[in-house]
């Protein structure tokens, strides 16, 4: 279980303290898939960097399985919004990187994300969507407790994003990993998660935490259901209130 307790963070620019996160607290239970949504520049990436251990918060702390997060570690792998595969390794080598897993395990995860036929390809030979799936396979192969995703699908086109969403849901049903995803795509957030945390503008505070009532085995058609649309409008209102 991930506990975030009263985290505040300031950036120092010259002599000025710029607050980006203000007293953020929430929990993520095992096997939960949580989205954070909020206006851009609200400090969402800062929160991911703190949870990843790249950054120390000015105040407060985060604990994973009751251990305080102090530095980066294999128990929480990050999938970045940038391309984070190593150009000089083929997909197999990328997925195997840093995990002392046998060939079978590595291949299992490559197959899980549907890249079996591309194990020997280099990243530059793959499309944007395939690269993201490879990053996902690398994260899963490390078998972490917790996966952090920072707008992982933001750079993909609409069609590719829809396909990858389906795959992500599929993979999540199989692996039941705890995950936190940052996005500013409201539909993506509702479609993928059990819980959505809505952030305010900078300095980010939590505006609301919304439970998503759909079961894990959801289909694309739920996007047209009245419940889905209701949640979507609620989030839209919460975000647009800011302006």
């Amino acid at each position, binding site marked *: 279980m991930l506990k975030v307790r009263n985290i505040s963070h300031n950036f120092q620019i010259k002599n000025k303290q710029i607050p980006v996160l203000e007293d953020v607290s929430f929990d993520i239970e095992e096997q939960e898939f949580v989205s954070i949504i909020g206006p851009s520049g609200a400090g969402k990436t800062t929160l991911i960097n703190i949870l*990843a*251990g*790249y950054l120390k918060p000015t105040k407060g702390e985060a604990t994973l399985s009751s251990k305080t997060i102090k*530095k*980066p*570690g*294999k128990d*929480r*792998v*990050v999938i*970045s919004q*940038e*391309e*984070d595969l*190593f*150009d*000089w*390794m083929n997909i197999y080598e990328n997925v195997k*990187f*840093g*995990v002392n897993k046998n060939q079978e395990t590595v291949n299992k995860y490559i197959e899980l994300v549907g890249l079996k036929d591309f194990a020997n390809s*280099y*990243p*530059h030979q793959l499309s944007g969507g395939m690269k993201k799936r490879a990053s996902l396979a690398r994260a899963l192969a*490390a078998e972490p407790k917790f996966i952090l995703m920072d707008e992982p699908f933001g750079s993909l086109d609409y069609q590719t994003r829809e396909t990858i969403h389906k795959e992500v849901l599929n993979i999540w049903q199989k692996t039941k990993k705890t995950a936190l995803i940052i996005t500013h795509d409201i539909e993506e957030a509702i479609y993928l998660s059990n819980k959505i945390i809505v952030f305010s503008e900078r300095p980010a505070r939590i505006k609301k935490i919304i439970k998503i009532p759909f079961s894990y085995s959801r289909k694309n058609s739920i996007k047209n259901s009245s419940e889905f649309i209701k949640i979507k409008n609620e989030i839209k209102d919460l975000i647009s209130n800011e302006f």
Partner: protein
Amino acid sequence: MTKPQMKQKLITFITLIVLWQGVFLILGPQNYILPSPKNTALTFIKVFESGEIIKHIFVSLKRVVIGFTLASVTGVFLGLILGYFKKAGSYFHPIVEILRPIPPIAWIPIAILIFGLGNGSAYFIVFLGAFFPIFTNTFFGVKSLPRVYKNVALSFEVTKFIFFKKILFYFSLPYIFTGLRIGIGMAWMSVIAAELIGAQSGLGYFIQLNRLLLQTEKIIIGMILIGMLGYFLNKIISILEKRLIPWKI
């Protein structure tokens, strides 16, 4: 090479020869500046038959290979280390920035004082010519490692050694090769310069000697060979680059 490319090159080549012949005719057959293409071609065959040029070619190539190899090893090593360790880098970098603008030829007098005439001076000048582009490119390659790669390495908790071996080195490899390509060109120019002044063998010495003997054909032959060999040295690095960096298209 495709057929049209071959044809284009042939046309360029023939045009040059025709122009050369034209200038020769204008200057007249008794001039000391420019020999005829025909005489040059005949002398070309003669110097290879007698073997006198072959020795000079190998001496120059040997000097370049040794000086360039030394420069590659030290340039890449220091570039990686000083690029990675920021503190050490900030002490060392100003020294490089001051030494770098000094052209290799300006080192020849001091090189001759230290190493005397001959191989020692040539190795040293070639080393200097090649070292700076190799070092600088490697250094900036390491410096431009994206944050996201460092983060992946941190997340997966890999050791410093693995980080160096599997990430930093390979990420820098395209930059290193840019350095090597510029470096081999500099090395070749430097060896010729060093031989013009501070040696008694090599292609640089060969053209200098034939200036004193007023053998203009041989000067031209020496220059053509310098151009051709420089081109091939560059080609070798380019082929190695394509082989060793398959992920860069």
